[in-house]
């Protein structure tokens, strides 16, 4: 796939950071608001797909390697399962939320009743959201990238 006109490229470059930030926000607030690792990851990956369409797969492939994406994807999945296994390692059961109530990272238990949401809650759930987010960003972008690059027409090889 080759790139599009300069107007499209410029607009994409401006909106790409906004889309990415919104996606990361959805991932980070997964335990508070609707959405989570998968949904946020899909948003970020769709931003990447927009860059792919506007700049063309040849330009992107020269900067991002599919191999590295697949490593990131594996890392995300491994992190997720390791977090679940850590719950077992802390003397309880698989998938146990061992961070809740420790008052450390994400370990605060919010007060009962209505109030403003506290991002520093949720225990391992936000961490698992990050892992899923990483996997979905790398996985979805990798799929789109490979498909776009494999379906490019012959004349565009440079």
């Amino acid at each position, binding site marked *: 796939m080759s790139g599009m006109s300069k107007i499209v490229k410029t607009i994409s470059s401006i909106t790409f950071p906004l889309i990415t930030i919104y996606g990361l926000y959805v991932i980070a607030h997964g335990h508070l608001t609707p959405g989570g690792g998968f949904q946020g990851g899909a948003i970020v990956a769709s931003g990447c797909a927009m860059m792919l369409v506007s700049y063309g797969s040849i330009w992107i492939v020269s900067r991002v390697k599919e191999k590295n994406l*697949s*490593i990131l994807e*594996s*890392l995300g*999945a*491994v992190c997720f*399962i*390791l977090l*679940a*296994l850590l*719950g*077992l390692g802390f003397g*309880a*059961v*698989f*998938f*146990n*939320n061992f961070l809740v109530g420790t008052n450390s990272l994400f370990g605060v238990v919010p007060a009962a009743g209505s109030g403003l949401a506290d991002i520093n809650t949720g225990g391992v759930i936000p961490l698992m959201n990050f892992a899923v987010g990483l996997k979905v960003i790398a996985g979805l972008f990798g799929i789109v990238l490979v498909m776009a690059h494999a379906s490019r027409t012959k004349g565009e090889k440079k």
Partner: protein
Amino acid sequence: MNVADLIDLLLQHSPALIVAVPLLGAFITPLISRLNDKVRNVFVILTLGLTASLVFLLASDVFTGNIHTYIFGSQDLALPVVRILFEVDAMSAFMAIISVILSLVAVIYSWSFMKENTGLDKYYTLILLMTAGMLGMELTGDLFNFFVFLEITSISSAALVAFWTNKAKSVEAGFKYIVISTIGALFILFSIALFYGQYNALNMAMIASAMQYTFLDKIALVLLIAALAMKAGVVPMHMWLPDAYSKAPSSVTLILVGATQASLYGVFRVCFTIYGGAINLSSISIGWILVILGIITMLLGVAMAIIQTDFKRLIAFSAVAEIGYMLLGIGTGLVVMLNPEMTATGLAAMKGGIFHIMNDALDVGLLFLVAGAIYYATKETSLNKLGGLARNMKYTTVFFIIGLLAVSGMPPMNGFASKLLIYESTYQLNPILSIIAILSSIMLLAVFVKVFHSAFLGPALPKFENVKEVPKSMLIAMGTIATIIIIFGLFPEIIVNSIVEPAANALINYGDYVREVIPSFTGGV
């Protein structure tokens, strides 16, 4: 902490670990394959070896009569309605043993068989994912969880069926498989919704204890049996199976046999456990449906196998026929379950059907591995072009003879033991059933004698002059299965008493399964 404590701890957590270990291994595999191919192969075999030892550890405890439950994320069973729950009884453990043996043998076989291929990191990742999915289906006690694992199994196996993407027919088979699987999975999801709407529960034991057998439940039963039978390759929903079995790499076919049987396990779990309470009303009709499906599956599978000329497609149709025996055995058990005069018959039929699940996995699996070995050595699957291979491949020939005798139910192989149990018990229900079953076995023998003659016997063909025996890893894989077949054939009594009978009893006494989660449940005694 001494060793006994550690084993206790492992045993307690083994239901979760059995799924978690292959899942973790699956995602570490692509990272390790950056280092070295051999290291990756060893890692995959070790991962599955660890899983297998966990399965055996768990099974050794479950077969003594304990039912294991494992609650994810919490130590107490305060809210069984919302907790994700694994529940392992003897039937689950029995199926898990089959799946894990097949996967382990398949990766050993793949070492040489898949050596020439690229993209092997993805291949091994998918195999581990598929194993995790199958084991999850067999161990879970939650219907929605069952659906999720079913999807994991279908997606990874569809990708594996289409692994040889340079062959158009493999891709077609993979596409067919994913379409059939998706339709089946949607049926299952719909019936889960019907249960959830009525009983507010997804847990199998919860649903079983609340089962009212309303009109909606009948619809859900039909959908569940149809979808799972479709995934198990029961005639008339078998059209995907010969394609998928014959076009996938042989090592993948071996695991696919396990995946279809995991779906078959789903049929039995639904009929016996979830609808266990409704069995007073419906067992006879459901049982007869299973028996009739079994008879059709048997006859059509064998009839189609006779006319095939492609080696793997022929074995695939005989695998369809073998599924019929399991359905016949278990269906007979369901028909006579409530008749107090025929309790022994019912138990014998169930034992035969369940034992045949394992025997079929081993026999058909061995034949597929032999077909793969022949393909590896000659690059040829058409029976019309093969011939005289016994001169060059003597071990493979011996393994094929063992598989041939086992699959057609000849003594002293394991197939004889389970088929005899099925013949004897179905004869008491209706002699015609057992006559059809024996007839199918004889036809299977005829089919495979023909294959044996055209592939292994006859004059040496000049084009196969340089054919050599296959590499060691493939021989080890085939030898392992052949050894198990002979041991099971020589000592069927030990196997039936130690693992098959507990599994049959676990299906019949579904009340114990429910009471493990809902202690106040009184039915199913």
